[in-house]
């Protein structure tokens, strides 16, 4: 069977599976819709969290980014896993004990203030929308390359599928489809990695293959070989970075803290039964994520080495089929500058003839390594699973922010459970349509903003939640001021140094690099904004009245794990 037939078969089977699960797990109440009824097992929640967390960016882009960034790519590996330690130790158990539906619920109740709740809703919406647009785009890319439909048609198909199970099943439908999606995506990521690891090093475990000797008889270690190839072509050594230590430190911190502050991840811990289940499922989630995250850097090394060997100084006319296929998508371009008919892939921008988009490294990897057709098709199904599962999780945060935090808690407090459920479904539908619109007409800044969503989450939610748990006397004035100052500072830095809007637009961005505060890039600035948030909160807190006694009692109560009732919205 050809790659295309295999792709149709595998994508068809997985989609049918997701729809089947959605019908089986329809939501009957708002509690089903928001927190899957509150009775999800730790393992199922761990798998769902892992799928929720690993987006199109983790599956499709990350290994590619690392392949081109080398050591500097470590910020994503440490940043997107280390955040779970913070989540498990500092947030998940206490938020589960608190037992409400959403993150703004916690902020609103803990800081006894509608203003705090609304600030939290706005932060949640900004973070989630920027993120979801990127997922829809990922769906479009996979469809257009593997099923040869137009990118926009791909986005629409993705929208319909997500709409179906998110609107019908809410958190319950999403949780169980995510369990299935985790299985699909991890299988799809591991199979090609194992194949290629055996091919190149003879070691079936990619994590070890990465540090093994090549089996081409040269006796060289794979990483030595890649370092050699890189310097030969004028690039930095693969195991060395170009970023400053300060910047690597700050970006890693921003990603870690941002991870712990992302509403669609936090909300997953409301779905388990007990506090100890919340802890355990955070551990399981990270274990399941780590399988992909420790394989990805190995894939990067394999793919980069393979790529250089396949293309550099080779005749353009001898290029394999995958090369032409990807050229058609525009994600790979060749321009024979010196007219010698050969491909020169070098660091010097003037002489370099090959431009490769980060995103194709994972998707093209099995083709570059000549793996069988079904493996290539599997990668397409895996990419779709990763993008759809994350999109669904984000849509749920958006819809519950609107139906629960705004409609029920602010505007129509006496709304019936049934009407609220319909409001949630309506909000999810609107959110899917908006996300789809951005997927089809991506504003030029989407890719840039997705990375910054972490900075925004770090600068706003993380300090407010941590202080809310660990500092009993933290009051609403401090928390609100901290969130507002934190997210504003982050937005300002982003607009100034990423979009250059105060200095004449995007063209000015590279020249502004020397003005970065303390040499910190916009991606790493979330760490600074987070620290400022902490300081502002604590200082304002000193000069304003203590929180009321009953709130202090709530804090004492969430610190004790026993007696966690079921999550409730009332």
């Amino acid at each position, binding site marked *: 069977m050809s790659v295309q037939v295999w792709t149709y078969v595998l994508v068809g089977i997985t989609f049918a599976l997701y729809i089947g699960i959605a019908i089986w797990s329809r939501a009957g109440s708002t509690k089903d819709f928001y927190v899957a009824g509150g009775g999800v097992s730790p393992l199922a929640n761990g798998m769902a969290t892992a799928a929720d967390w690993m987006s199109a960016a983790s599956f499709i882009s990350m290994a590619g980014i690392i392949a081109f960034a080398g050591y500097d790519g470590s910020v994503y590996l440490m940043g997107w*896993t280390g955040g779970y330690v913070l989540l498990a130790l500092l947030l998940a158990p206490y938020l589960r004990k608190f037992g409400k539906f959403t993150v703004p619920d916690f902020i609103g109740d803990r800081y006894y203030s509608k203003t705090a709740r609304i600030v939290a809703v706005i932060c949640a919406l900004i973070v989630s929308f920027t993120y979801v647009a990127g997922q829809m785009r990922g769906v479009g890319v996979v469809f257009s390359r593997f099923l040869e439909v137009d990118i926009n048609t791909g986005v629409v198909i993705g929208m319909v599928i997500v709409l179906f199970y998110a609107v019908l099943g809410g958190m319950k439908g999403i949780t169980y489809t995510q369990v299935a999606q985790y299985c699909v995506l991890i299988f799809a990521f591991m199979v090609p990695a194992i194949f290629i690891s055996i091919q190149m090093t003879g070691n079936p475990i990619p994590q070890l293959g990465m540090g093994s000797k090549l089996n081409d008889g040269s006796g060289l270690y794979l990483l030595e070989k890649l370092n050699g190839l890189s310097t030969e072509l004028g690039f930095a050594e693969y195991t060395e970075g170009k970023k400053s230590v300060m910047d690597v430190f700050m970006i890693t911190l921003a990603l870690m803290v941002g991870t712990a502050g992302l509403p669609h991840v936090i909300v997953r811990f409301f779905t388990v039964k007990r506090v100890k289940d919340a802890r355990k499922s955070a*551990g399981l989630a990270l274990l399941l994520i780590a399988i992909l995250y420790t394989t990805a850097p190995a894939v990067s090394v394999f793919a980069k080495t393979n790529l250089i060997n396949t293309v550099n100084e080779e005749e353009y006319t001898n290029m394999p089929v995958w090369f032409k296929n990807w050229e058609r998508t525009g994600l790979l371009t060749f321009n024979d500058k010196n007219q010698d008919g050969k491909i020169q892939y070098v660091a010097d921008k003037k002489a370099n003839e090959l431009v490769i988009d980060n995103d194709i490294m994972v998707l093209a990897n099995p083709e570059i390594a000549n793996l069988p057709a079904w493996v290539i098709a599997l990668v397409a199904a895996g990419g779709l699973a990763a993008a759809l599962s994350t999109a669904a999780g984000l849509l749920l945060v958006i819809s519950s922010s609107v139906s629960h935090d705004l409609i029920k808690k602010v505007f129509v407090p006496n709304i019936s459970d049934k009407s609220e459920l319909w409001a949630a479904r309506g909000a999810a539908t609107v959110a899917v349509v908006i996300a789809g619109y951005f997927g089809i007409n991506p504003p030029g800044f989407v890719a840039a903003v997705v990375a910054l969503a972490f900075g925004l989450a770090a600068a706003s939610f993380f300090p407010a939640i941590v202080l809310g748990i660990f500092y009993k006397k933290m009051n609403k004035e401090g928390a609100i001021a901290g969130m507002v100052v934190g997210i504003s500072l982050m937005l300002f830095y982003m607009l100034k140094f990423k979009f250059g809007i105060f200095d004449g637009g995007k063209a000015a961005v590279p020249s502004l690099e020397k003005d970065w505060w303390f040499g910190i890039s916009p991606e790493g600035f979330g760490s600074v904004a987070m620290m400022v948030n902490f300081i502002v909160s604590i200082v304002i807190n000193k000069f304003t009245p203590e929180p009321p006694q009953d709130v202090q009692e709530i804090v004492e109560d969430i610190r004790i794990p026993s007696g966690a009732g079921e999550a409730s919205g009332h």
Partner: protein
Amino acid sequence: MSKKQQKASAYWKENVKYLFILLSIWFLVSYGAGILFKDVLDNIQIGGFKLGFWFAQQGSIYIFVILIFVYVRLMNKLDKKYGYDT
């Protein structure tokens, strides 16, 4: 302070002590070994890996997973000790 409150604050103190120890390790393996002392550790080579690079792209992640499971164990024991495990 009532007896109940005393018990609660003793529990909380032990919890915070665990957090402090575990988060110190969390910091050391990632920010320490993977970033700040990366260049020093890179002088040590294990198999094909330079050690600092290995911590940044592999080792820190393994240790993160272990840390959470150690935390789960410690807390389950602590809950039992204070009778909060129901």
